[in-house]
């Protein structure tokens, strides 16, 4: 078999092993959570009778080992079970949430990744000159502000102040002003529904996309810059320079391909963050994603849902890292053709 296929197969097997280990951790983690599912569902005002009735109905009195294996068995057959709290099918409610999360992550990544890499390349091209410093200053500032704060700032300026500002611009013709008012609307509530067109959906999540872009930009940009600068020290870059190639062409054709491995790793890490780590942004914009869904069920001790979410997050993380590994191998001729 081709060595690369063997390698990919190995990585995949390892990934599954990791996922299995993660499933045990998730199960143990949910088992040691303090509190009680029945109490959490019924709240402060629950009567003891109601609690006892609910506990028996949910079957939370069985031993943990039994529950783990019956859960794992179900998962392997594609059955995630039903939520304890509202009796809904987990796979069904989860798929729409996962869809939303991926939708947001996709658009944020589509903007953030090319932007970060371009900015990184530019920073290398103008190293230590003002464009480099400006790019670094801006991206480092945005990564240093907590994401909820960026969210609130954008809401304040774009969805609350901007319409007031436009409304107050008496010098503009009324037609233009009302056109601006209706088209420059940044929704502070990112609620989508199925009856919306794609454009409307993207419009409703403009602010979360902006926040996420600002949050992940710096990490990827800095890594691109550092990795390429590292390569720029090499002898073959000097050769290219002596050949008389332009700076941007050298970076694009000679330096970038050799810096791909670290960049891909960081990009994947950030993509994983966009999928599994955006609960704060979801809360600020009331976006119906996976994070909020997970947190709701953790607070209600709805263990099957927490386990399902945990497993999906683990799978996303492991999967993206797997891709990063494989891409870096493919990008490196020495790893591609081992002796």
């Amino acid at each position, binding site marked *: 078999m081709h060595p690369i296929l063997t390698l990919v197969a190995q990585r995949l097997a390892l990934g599954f092993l990791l996922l299995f280990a993660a499933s045990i951790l998730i199960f143990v983690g949910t088992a040691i959570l303090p*509190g009680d599912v029945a109490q959490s*569902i019924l709240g402060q005002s629950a*009567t003891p009778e109601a609690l006892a009735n609910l506990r028996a109905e949910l079957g939370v009195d069985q031993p943990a080992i039994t529950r783990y294996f019956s859960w794992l068995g179900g998962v392997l057959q594609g059955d995630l079970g039903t939520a304890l709290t509202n009796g809904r099918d987990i796979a069904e409610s989860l798929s729409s949430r996962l869809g939303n999360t991926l939708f947001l992550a996709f658009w944020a990544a589509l903007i953030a990744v090319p932007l970060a890499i371009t900015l990184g390349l530019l920073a290398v091209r103008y190293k230590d000159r003002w464009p480099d410093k400006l790019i670094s200053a801006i991206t480092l500032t945005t990564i240093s502000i907590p994401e909820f704060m960026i969210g609130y700032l954008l809401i304040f300026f774009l969805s609350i102040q901007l319409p007031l500002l436009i*409304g107050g611009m008496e010098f503009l013709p009324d037609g233009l002003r009302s056109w601006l008012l209706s088209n420059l609307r940044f929704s502070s*509530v990112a609620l989508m529904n199925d009856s919306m067109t794609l454009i409307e959906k993207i419009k409703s999540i403009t602010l979360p996309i902006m926040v996420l872009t600002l949050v992940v930009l710096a990490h990827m940009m800095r890594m691109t810059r550092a990795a390429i600068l590292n390569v720029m020290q090499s002898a073959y870059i000097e050769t290219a320079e002596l050949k008389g190639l332009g700076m941007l062409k050298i970076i694009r054709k000679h330096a970038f391909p050799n810096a791909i491995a670290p960049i891909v790793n960081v990009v994947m890490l950030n993509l994983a963050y966009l999928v599994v780590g955006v609960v704060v942004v979801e809360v600020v914009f009331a976006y119906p994603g996976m994070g909020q869904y997970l947190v709701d069920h953790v607070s209600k001790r709805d263990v099957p849902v927490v386990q399902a979410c945990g497993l999906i997050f683990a799978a996303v993380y492991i999967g993206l890292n797997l891709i990063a590994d494989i891409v870096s191998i493919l990008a490196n001729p020495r790893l591609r053709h081992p002796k």
Partner: protein
Amino acid sequence: MNDALKHLSTRVTKGLMTRREFVGRAAALGVTAAVANSMLASAAKAAGPVKGGTLKIGTSGGESTNTQDPAAAASEAPITNLRLWGEPLVNTAPDGGLDFRAAESVEASADAKTWTFKIRQGVEFHNGKSLTAEDVLATMQRHSNDDSQSGALGIMKGIENMKADGDNFVVELSVGNADLPYLMADYHLMIQPNGGMDDPTAAIGIGAYTLEVDEPGVRHGFKKNPNYWDDTRGHADEVEVLVLNDSTARTAALQSGQVHLINRIDPKVAGLLDRAPNLGVKSVSGRGHYVFIMHVDTAPFDNNELRLALKYAINREEMVDKILRGYGSIGNDMPINKAYPLFDETIPQREHDLAKAAEHYKKSGHDGSPIILRTADGAFPGAVDAAALFQQSAQAAGIPLEIKREPNDGYWSEVWNVQPFCASYWGGRPVQDQMYSTAYLSTADWNDTRWKREDFDAKLLAARAELDEAKRKAIYSEMGRNLRDEGGLILPMFNDFVDGVSNNVGGWIEDPNDQMMNNLASVKCWVNA
């Protein structure tokens, strides 16, 4: 009206533009002066309910774990939903009287033991079935039978027998209760076809709206029920309930006009928010209160001198000022305030008195070991800060109060009603009897101060069956004084309901029963076009 004109007319109502300027601008847009003036009038006063449009509500207290089962509703978003699609037998009216819904009238026997509700005729459920007394009976059975998980189980306890008798629903009690109709106003007791026995989560009721979109923890969409029986309610064609748990997200949505009504405005921002031109902050005093509760049967809180020392040590005015930012009123260590019927105003207010606190502390003979107060952010908004204020004033009286901060997660199962001294809150009940029977009766499940006094129980039962209001008031007054001087609750403040209402919304009234006009803003308010 086109957008430019609408914008101009709202500028006039906000006082940013004069009437004369408006008519001039409108003329420039090709509108005659007469039409422009009438447009202004509609923007300014908008008399009477406006039918149609979509009313949007941003609410806290929603989670993806919510269901439409009335028995399980416990937080704001599910209750808002219930109020839209369902109605109970009666509601508590804003003035404290009864507002008849599924029942048309009610009659009591002389001993207040037998209550007969006449069921309204010609009312249909959303599925087309007619409302009958049997449906009412089945509903009440579902909330009171042995395997019920209903939040209303506690209040159904005193009922000995229920039956459907023609168009009447009859309740028989073991002990007379003059307040029984108020118990039937509980929001869990939404009348469902066959009592919801078939599918409690179907959201089929007799309410003004039908549930069209149900995404728990995200949004709920409702359409007007064309067969709704009461045309004084349900003005908007559609109602959208958006779950906005983050309080900043909620206020931003109201400010930017994405929703018309929001609940639970953080007192810290309420004053600032009220300055915004397009909305109003509505503060309504109610019966909800924030408490520090002690188990009177657990040392050191079994010593009344120590309890009194703590009660004198707390600075109530400071709490209302700093924790509620003035959106509330001071409490008197009893769970009743003037928002309740039959409240005795002559009960003296307990003052902040460090000398008395020190004196009682000395008399208690406490050994000086730290007294642990457990608190968490989730106990009530500002509970951690309130505990810190309490600690400071207690220390000034020489009482070694120590704060233990607990996680929000699991607070209601691990700390509240388990630990002997902790922060908590109560939502209040429509009548005194219900408040006392919920938390201060010996046998009450949520007796979170372990207040078990036979004489107190006897008084409560006597007042319950007493139909002479003056005598009832006198008994309630004794009970209140008793709790104030010996009980396990330190009640520094009653919190107001603080809601936000857009200027586009008409029909807002004060209702002390619960937030958002007893959660009925969705059916009583309308959107001005």
